[in-house]
């Protein structure tokens, strides 16, 4: 019986946020705390000839100014958590990423000195007085140009700026042969521009060394406190893990950018002992723009071949992926195993080859941003298929129906094995697109479009996507180069009074775990939701965890909770059996009590809990207590999918695009809290649409980030977006106990190409046979596309 699962239970966590009582890292004030501020490189590529701190050191309130040379050799740089090797087997290039640079800066914002003072204003004032003499060098910012002859070199030990090259799928000659035999080939050169994650809470970290316990505490705005502890202790500072506690308090959004271990975290932690005081650092927004890992940044060429019926026969993709100046935590995985592996999409394409060159440039690091690799793959596929439909004069929806993989549930029918190394768990693709067409009123729309005659061009764009979520089976990712496992951990602690505390290694920074997880626990244990408390974000109270990203919390973390509950109930049954003088096999558990089957003899969960902690009348040989943990390592990824449709109106005179409607039908498997899932979809849509229409970094040729502030970088605002029209189908995941697939990234993965496709459709139908408008599709770019 379910009282909570499937219901839009209002969020437990909201109370503190709506009353201003959320506790984010920057809200924390410790006794004797000092404030840090970074001196950052204003140049993309330069030799640091000298640093003079004399004047700055004498400024009011200054406690210490650290430069690269102050950091002991024993402290390593920031590590990378994923290794992807060259096609020829050589290890990827992994240049050091020091906490503060010594000799050379490699992107604007590279850390040169760290000023610690009594107040933030004083630290900032003194930072202005640190005198750094630079010798400016040439820079390169484009991943394709970076690999060309004569390009400026980012790292001495990465010739041609190549970190690795990589290939996946069928052999190139097989793909080429299929392509040559195709009746029609659609080819597109395009970029998937760089965007900035822009969580509204800037990153922040506080290091605190406690001499009494010889223990460090790091408070940090992170999506995964345990992972930060692991990386920082083992790879950077060389401090044993039990001497470090990492707390990720309330976190104001992450979207990937707060997964990674950043230099600032290690620096404040280490310096807090050196300086003998807690140290807080909080980024300015402009600092966030320069140092939070960015997303996307691919330059691609792709071809899709079709037979005369419109069946896809081959796909060849070439991509240059920008990694930025240093390797961020998961950077190598993003353009490879999170990207190339998704090139099957929802289609039966028999021959696929993906070729990726990953390059260093003099720019901020690029890593996972909501969707991470999967939006890039979806963009490539969905742009090609919509364009092909225009070129072949076919209906884009029809063309998709023709190519969809037939339905399979992963139970009766086997999972679908792709050409690119994955096995999809379960899928049923026709219904999402059918439902989306219904919501659009497709036939009506096409009539309206044909009749349009007011100087505005109507367009419709589709995107039918798949993603690999629920990251990840450890053995699989281990074989692919991950340097960590990707299981999740949960502990279910029943208190003597029958109240339940659940410790999860997942971390909520907006996802509502305190509610969703409590719904699961309350239902499975047959207790009230108010009797459940969800605890996360503290490495000292939560046994272990890998954190929240890759739409994994519910699929992996939720499954760990279910497994812990099973253990609790199994032991509970033994205690109940003893109390009822029956055999555990004869009991059934429902609605918070164990009943002897076929009788009215029962004992409540509360009584069993109390007995577990006051074991006077207790089964022989059984340990007291009712407290279990579980490590859940998933059997496979999960594969949510969906159909997104955008309807736009393009002004023929100005090139201005208005997004009139956005329809999304997603299948994320079973749903625990529809309200929260809808919210995740909405937020993802806004980010995906933002990339299509508004966002994108602009680096000039010297490597300056021209639009590194909210004045210049166009964030999607409320009046840029329509109300979203969303719906769902449900195809449960066959391999986790909840049947869930994950909803965090879907909106962001599907939406971007739908919007661009809609603009291309509008232009095409208006007589402009334009193949591409580069994102973000500003009026100027659309106008230029029409008028060239």
């Amino acid at each position, binding site marked *: 019986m379910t009282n909570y699962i499937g219901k839009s239970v209002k969020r437990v966590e909201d109370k503190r946020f709506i009353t201003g009582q959320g506790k984010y890292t920057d809200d924390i004030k410790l006794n004797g705390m000092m404030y840090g501020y970074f001196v950052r490189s204003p140049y993309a590529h330069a030799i640091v000839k000298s640093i003079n701190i004399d004047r700055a050191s004498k400024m009011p309130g200054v406690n210490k100014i650290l430069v690269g040379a102050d950091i002991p050799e024993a402290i390593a740089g920031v590590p990378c958590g994923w290794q992807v090797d060259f096609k020829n087997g050589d290890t990827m290039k992994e240049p050091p990423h020091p906490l503060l640079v010594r000799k050379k800066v490699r992107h604007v914002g590279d850390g040169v000195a760290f000023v610690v003072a009594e107040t933030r204003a004083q630290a900032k004032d003194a930072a202005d007085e640190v005198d750094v003499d630079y010798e400016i060098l040439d820079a390169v910012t484009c991943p394709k140009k970076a690999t060309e002859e004569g390009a400026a070199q980012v790292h001495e030990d990465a010739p041609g700026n190549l970190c690795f090259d990589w290939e996946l799928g069928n052999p190139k000659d097989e793909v080429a042969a299929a392509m040559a035999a195709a009746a029609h080939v659609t080819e597109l050169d395009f970029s998937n521009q760089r965007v900035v994650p822009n969580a509204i*809470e800037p990153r922040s970290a506080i290091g605190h060394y406690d001499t009494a316990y010889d223990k460090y505490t790091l408070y940090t705005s992170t999506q995964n406190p345990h992972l930060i502890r692991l990386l920082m202790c083992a790879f950077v500072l060389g401090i044993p893990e039990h001497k470090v506690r990492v707390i990720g308090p309330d976190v104001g959004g992450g979207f990937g950018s707060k997964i990674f271990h950043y230099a600032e975290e290690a620096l404040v932690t280490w310096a807090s002992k050196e300086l003998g005081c807690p140290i807080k650092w909080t980024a300015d927004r402009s600092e966030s723009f320069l140092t939070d890992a960015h997303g996307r940044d691919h330059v691609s060429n792709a071809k899709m071949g079709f037979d005369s019926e419109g069946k896809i026969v081959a796909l060849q993709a070439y991509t240059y992926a920008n990694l930025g100046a240093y390797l961020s935590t998961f950077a190598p995985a993003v353009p490879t195993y999170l990207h190339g592996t998704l090139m099957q999409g929802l289609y039966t394409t028999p021959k696929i080859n993906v070729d990726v060159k990953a390059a260093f440039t003099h720019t901020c690091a690029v890593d996972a941003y909501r969707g991470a690799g999967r939006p890039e793959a979806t963009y490539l596929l969905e742009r090609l298929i919509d364009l092909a439909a225009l070129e072949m004069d076919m209906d884009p929806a029809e063309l998709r129906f023709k190519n969809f993989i037939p339905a399979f549930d992963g139970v009766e029918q086997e999972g679908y094995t792709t050409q690119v190394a994955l096995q999809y768990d379960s899928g049923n693709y026709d219904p999402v697109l059918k439902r989306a067409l219904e919501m659009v009123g497709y036939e009506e729309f096409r009539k309206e479009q044909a009749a349009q005659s007011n100087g505005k061009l109507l367009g419709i764009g589709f995107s039918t996507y798949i993603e690999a979520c629920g990251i990840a089976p450890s053995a699989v990712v281990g074989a692919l180069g991950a340097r960590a496992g990707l299981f999740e951990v949960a502990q279910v602690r029943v208190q003597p009074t029958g109240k339940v505390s659940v410790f999860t290694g997942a971390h909520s920074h907006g996802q509502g775990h305190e509610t969703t997880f409590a719904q699961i626990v309350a239902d499975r244990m047959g207790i009230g939701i108010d009797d459940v408390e969800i605890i996360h974000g503290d490495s000292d109270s939560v046994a272990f965890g890998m954190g929240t990203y890759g739409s994994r919390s519910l699929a992996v973390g939720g499954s760990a909770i279910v497994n812990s509950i099973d253990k609790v109930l199994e032991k509970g049954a033994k205690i109940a059996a003893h109390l009822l003088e029956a055999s555990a096999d004869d009991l059934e558990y429902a609605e918070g009590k164990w009943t002897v089957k076929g009788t009215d003899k029962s004992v409540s969960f509360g009584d069993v809990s109390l007995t577990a902690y006051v074991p006077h009348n207790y089964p022989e040989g059984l340990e007291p207590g009712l407290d279990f943990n579980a490590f859940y390592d998933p059997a496979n990824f999960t594969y949510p999918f969906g159909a997104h449709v955008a309807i736009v109106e393009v002004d023929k005179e100005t090139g201005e695009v208005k997004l009139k409607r956005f329809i999304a039908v997603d299948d994320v498997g079973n749903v625990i809290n529809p309200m*929260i899932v809808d919210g995740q979809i909405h937020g993802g849509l806004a980010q995906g649409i933002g990339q299509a229409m508004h966002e994108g970094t602009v680096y000039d040729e010297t490597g300056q980030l021209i639009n590194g502030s909210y004045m210049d970088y166009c964030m999607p605002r409320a009046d840029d977006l329509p109300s979203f029209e969303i719906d769902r189908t449900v195809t449960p995941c066959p391999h986790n106990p909840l049947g869930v697939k994950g909803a965090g990234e879907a909106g962001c993965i599907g939406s971007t190409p739908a919007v661009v496709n809609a603009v291309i459709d509008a232009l095409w139908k208006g007589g402009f046979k334009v193949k591409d408008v580069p994102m973000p599709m500003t009026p100027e770019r659309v106008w230029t596309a029409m008028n060239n």
Partner: protein
Amino acid sequence: MGNMITVTVNGKEHSGGVEGRTLLVDYLREHLGLTGTHIGCDTSSCGACTIHMDGKAVKSCTVLAVQADGSEVTTVEGLANNGSLHPIQEGFKEEHGLQCGFCTPGMMMTATDLLKNNPNPTEDEIRHALEGNFCRCTGYHNIVKSIQYAAKKMQSPA
């Protein structure tokens, strides 16, 4: 700390010295410990710091603390009345108008100002009023609904 100021915040009078350059948001957060008002940018763009000063929504990162001398300030901490939530707070909870909660205080302060001047706004008017408040989590969809909820609630005295 040359400048003595007196500011009434959430009905309580505070007097103290501040530097001339101290921003009102820093005064609220650092001096008074009212950390419900957030800082999301350094260009007066994001609205996370929005508060009410003498009854009007302002971005507290755009006001110097000394300029607030003698003013009445309301922050998110002062929205609820004797423990009962303001309709806008209720709206955000009921309609899932927040995820990470970081933009939420500023959103609510902007929204209450809107509803004071326009008790029954259209969706377009709401979206327009939120132009200076960024949310990265919700796509604004449910924020609009939250404000509509509050508008309705405030008009029908229950």
